[in-house]
């Protein structure tokens, strides 16, 4: 399989007053195309830093991040914007839908700026919201809102789908359904999905699990036979 992402010796340090904190302290890992990856770690393990760097929202202090062969660590702000625009789809913990736009419009908001977007209505059907197209976020349940967020991310037809605690604000059952949906999307659209979570119970469902601890990759394992989410309990 082709390698999509390569993290090489990534260091990200924040200076707070006189103290320098390395949020990422030499992170190395690879992700192949089409993989469903779970990055797991406790609070403060450096998950969000990885997400920010991978999502093009931040640049590392040192090291290189190769995405599809391009070193995004060297990108300037403008290039990073283009990278986010075309290559990345985000799913956030709090959905971050635009309250003033309908579900469909939220999806269109993303797809209209993308190079090769998928059909918004079609994606909405895929996430099972064909009947909620014209509802505003406030009229949707949390699960439904997260589905819209997923649809919004997928409609851009990105190379990489980044999910930050996608189930964090959802109840257990809904959370499961969302994870199942992500997995399904990964397979349907042959998309690389990276889910960042503190919940290590999710590890069995991934093709690749990356364990973070203290800003370093503590362990990485590949599941030859990932478990369907329905079978996982936590």
């Amino acid at each position, binding site marked *: 399989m082709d390698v999509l992402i390569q993290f090489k010796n990534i260091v990200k340090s924040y200076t707070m007053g006189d103290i320098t904190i390395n949020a990422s302290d030499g992170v190395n890992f690879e992700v192949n195309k089409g993989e469903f990856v779970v990055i797991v770690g406790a609070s403060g393990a450096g998950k*969000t830093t990885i997400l*920010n760097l991978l*999502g093009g*929202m*931040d640049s590392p202090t040192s090291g290189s991040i190769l995405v599809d062969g391009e070193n995004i660590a060297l990108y300037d702000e*403008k290039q990073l*914007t*283009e*990278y*986010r*625009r*075309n290559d*990345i789809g*985000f799913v*956030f913990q*709090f959905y*971050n839908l*635009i*309250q*003033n*736009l*309908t579900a469909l*419009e939220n999806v*269109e*908001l*993303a797809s*209209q*700026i*993308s190079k090769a977007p998928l059909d918004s209505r079609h994606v909405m059907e895929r996430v099972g919201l064909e009947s909620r197209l014209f509802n*505003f*976020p*406030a*009229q949707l349940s949390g699960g439904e809102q997260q589905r819209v967020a997923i649809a*919004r991310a997928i409609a*851009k037809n990105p190379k990489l789908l980044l999910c*930050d605690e996608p189930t964090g604000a959802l109840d257990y059952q809904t959370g499961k359904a969302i994870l199942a949906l992500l997995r399904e999307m990964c397979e349907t659209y042959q998309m690389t999905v990276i889910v960042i979570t503190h919940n290590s119970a999710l590890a069995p469902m991934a093709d690749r699990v990356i364990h973070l601890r203290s800003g370093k990759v503590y362990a990485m394992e590949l599941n030859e036979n990932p478990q369907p989410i329905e079978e996982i309990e936590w």
Partner: protein
Amino acid sequence: MVKVKKSLYWKNLRKSIAKSKSRFLSIFFIVLLGAAFFAGLRNTPGSMMTTMDYYLDKHSYADLTYIASLGFSMDDIEAIKDIEGIDKIEYGYQFDALTQFNNKLTGIKVYTSESFDDQMINHPLLKEGRFPLDDKECIVDVELNKLGTQIGDHILIYNDQGEKTFEVVGVVDDVRYVAKTDRGTNTLGDGTNAGYIEILNEKNAFLAMPQELYDLRDKDILYNQLSVTIKGAKEYNVFSSEYDDFIENVNTKIKSQLSLRMSDLYDDITSQAQKELDEAKKEYQDGLNTFQSSKNDFEEKILEAKIQLINAKMSLSQKEAELIKAQSIASESAKDSLSDIQKTTQELRKELETLRKQLEDFQKNPITQPSPDVQVIIDRLDDISETLESTTGSLDGVSQLADANLQLENAKLKIQEQENKLSLEELKTRNQLEKAQADLDDGLKKITDAQDEINAIPKGQVFTLTRHENAGLVNYSSNIDSISSIANVFPLMFFLVSALVSLTTMTRMVEEQRSQSGTLRALGYSKWDVIQQYVVYVIFATFFACLLGIVGGTQFFPRIIIYLYNLMLFQIDSPIMISSDLMIAFQTLFISVFVTLFATLFVCVSELNLLPAVLMRPKAPKLGKRIFIERIPFIWKRLSFNQKVTMRNIFRYKKRFFMSIIGIAGCTALIITGFGIKNSVSQVVDKQYNEVWTYDAAVRLEEPVAMSVAKDYQNHLLKRDEVNNIEYVYNQSIQILKNKEDLYGTLIVYQSMDNIQNFVSFTDFYSHKEIKPNDEGIILSAKTAELLNVGVDDTIDISISGEKYNVKISAIMENYFMNYIYMSQTLYENVTSQSLKVNHAFVIMKKLDQSYKTSLETYMNEHQYGNLSYIDDAGEEFNTQVQSIDLVIIILIICAAALNFIVLYNLTNINIQERKSEIATIKVLGFRKKEVYDYIFRENILLSVIGSFIGMFFGYVLHQFIIRTVELDMTMFIRELNPLSYVIAVIMTLGFTMLINLTMRHVLNKVDMVESLKSIE
């Protein structure tokens, strides 16, 4: 406990302010600006008054100035010197003179003083040089200095009384002239003054008044100007009615004293002459009486003689008639006897014939024939001789009659002789009488002339000049009024906006802190405790902002406005005196603080009425809602995705929407008003002089002339190369009667309905269509109709030379200067029953170039066809006055820009703060910088477009209001707003918005994707 609570509040408050600097500052600044505008503009008129008052007081401006046509003698001055209230009296002269400037004859005003020092009334401010020390030195107006007169120059001034050369020793500003260029009118030269000069009284009096005046008054020293200052008048502001009352009080006393003296003087001068005249009159009357009686005598005698003659003639003619009768009788009887004789003779002859025949026959044949009756014949002959005898007797009577006739002829001759003698006598006497009559007439004329001369002795007139007669001060005062009316309207707009800004800002704050409020309520604080926090916060923000605004505004606005006035229109050599009215400060404080406080309370109460438990939960995000445009698929479908998003966002927050719209509309309205006012005022000249009055020059005749004479002039003038068309009219100042006070207007009576329209364009004020003049009614100027509140078909009363007439209005025309009534000749003659005489003419030139103008002028002067004046010269003067309008525009545009900035800055700021997460989201989604700017700023642009369109309407209303407020009775400004003002206003408003958008970019750039995504809003 209380102390703890209190300190907790302060701590909380400090923290609140520190945490929300931009919010605190936005309330602070909008209130500051609102207060500054309000207090500043409202204090401006007062400061303008105080500054001027200070300047006038400092230079001892004469409260009262008296000018006497017959001059003031020292006795006159003595007489008023002790009137109570007078502080100081100074005497001198003021007169008009001419001088040469750059080879051009220029009028100047000359003032004289007994001496120059800093204590004198109207003491001039020395800009350069020194005051005159002897009679050959003068100080000159700065305006003359600008024209090139330097210290050391010698200027020759002259007038009808004489001439004199003065050396310039100083350049001054005189307190009597507060306006920059206007130097009043001159009775000599072209009628205007270029400036004034000031000299000493000593040895210069001869220039001021003619020698005859001294002779007339039999005085060696006379002054024609008295300057008076009033004790205590400096306490009052020169523009206040208290000042006017105070001055009037003393003025009445002085004036009545002076009038009394002047009328005594008049009686004095006239009584001697009158006495002499009366004697002459008496003599004349006596002569007249003698003449009359001798004339009567003569007439009587002549009549008697004539009657005698006539009697004689009559008896003579009676005799004649008798004679004729006798003659006719005599000749009749003579004729009768003659014819008898003839007849008898014939008969006799016949008988004799017969007898002869018989005798012959007898002789021939005496036997056969009887013998003739000889005896018969003899008898007959006797008869005849008898008859002849009697006839001869009657013929004697005839000769007697012829004698009588001769006598009669003699008598006739004698009568004729008598008659001739009488005629001669009469003629002689009549000649004598006529001579006497002529002498008497001569005497009468001399008497009338003498009476005229006496009547012509001027009644000494005294003119009072107060600050109401000073053109500069009147102009300044009307500028104060304009600023006042602006100050009454504009700041209100700022208050409205500041209320809206506070409202939205506080709403935002209360909503943000709802969980904190909920917690406090849950902890047991009362609702009021929580509200109190915000109230204190608001008072803290507004109270100090307001104080700062009042102080800053009061210092800034009057200063800048007076400075600009000083720069452009007035020369007030005094520091700017700020007057601050405590009442205005209170008003400002009250409105600013209360408006914001009320807005805050409104938000707090509606928000905090919820249960603490509800409050503690985050507020459900404001529901996305469909907006009304979505229900119109026709429009909605056509919008791009981004446009839809923008529309949704705009209509999402109504308060904010209205705040922005009102602010932006206000901005547009202010700019429209500014440019509109400029246009309305500056176009007046152009409209009046080019569009309404399409003639080029007017001719004024000294005396009205009959139409036939005018026709003659007209024919002569039309032959000239320069003249294209000319129309003679009757131009008369009239009064137009109104309930309270009459209007003064000009009546124009034209001869030709067709031709007049070549000179004056009659355009209907309402429909803008051409008016067809008719004989039914007058055409009235629009402003006049408005002042009288009349319309077409109404009638108005006008008074022409004291005679009142009622006329019907047939049309109302566009006209911008003064009140005009146009009337046809027929209508005039019908109404007044007088035949039209003309005194005025309108001229259209073939070409309006200087050589044509001059040559026609010369021609008119040479032939005494009247005084020619070109109207393009008249328009110039007004144009310079219009410059002050630029000032208004500058102020309005500054206001407008400030308003737009405050509103849009606040709106954008709140918008960005509130939608941080949304902005972060779209950034994460990969929106490019420009797309992010557009996403937010497109709303500002759309709001600006909507706002400026609404602003057009506001602008129209505001413009109408201002134009009507500042309009004078004699002038009508252009009421229409020109389209360009709208265009400029919209472009400027959008320009301001762009500028805001540009400056707000960095705020958007600062929104951090990572930070904003972490929390729920």
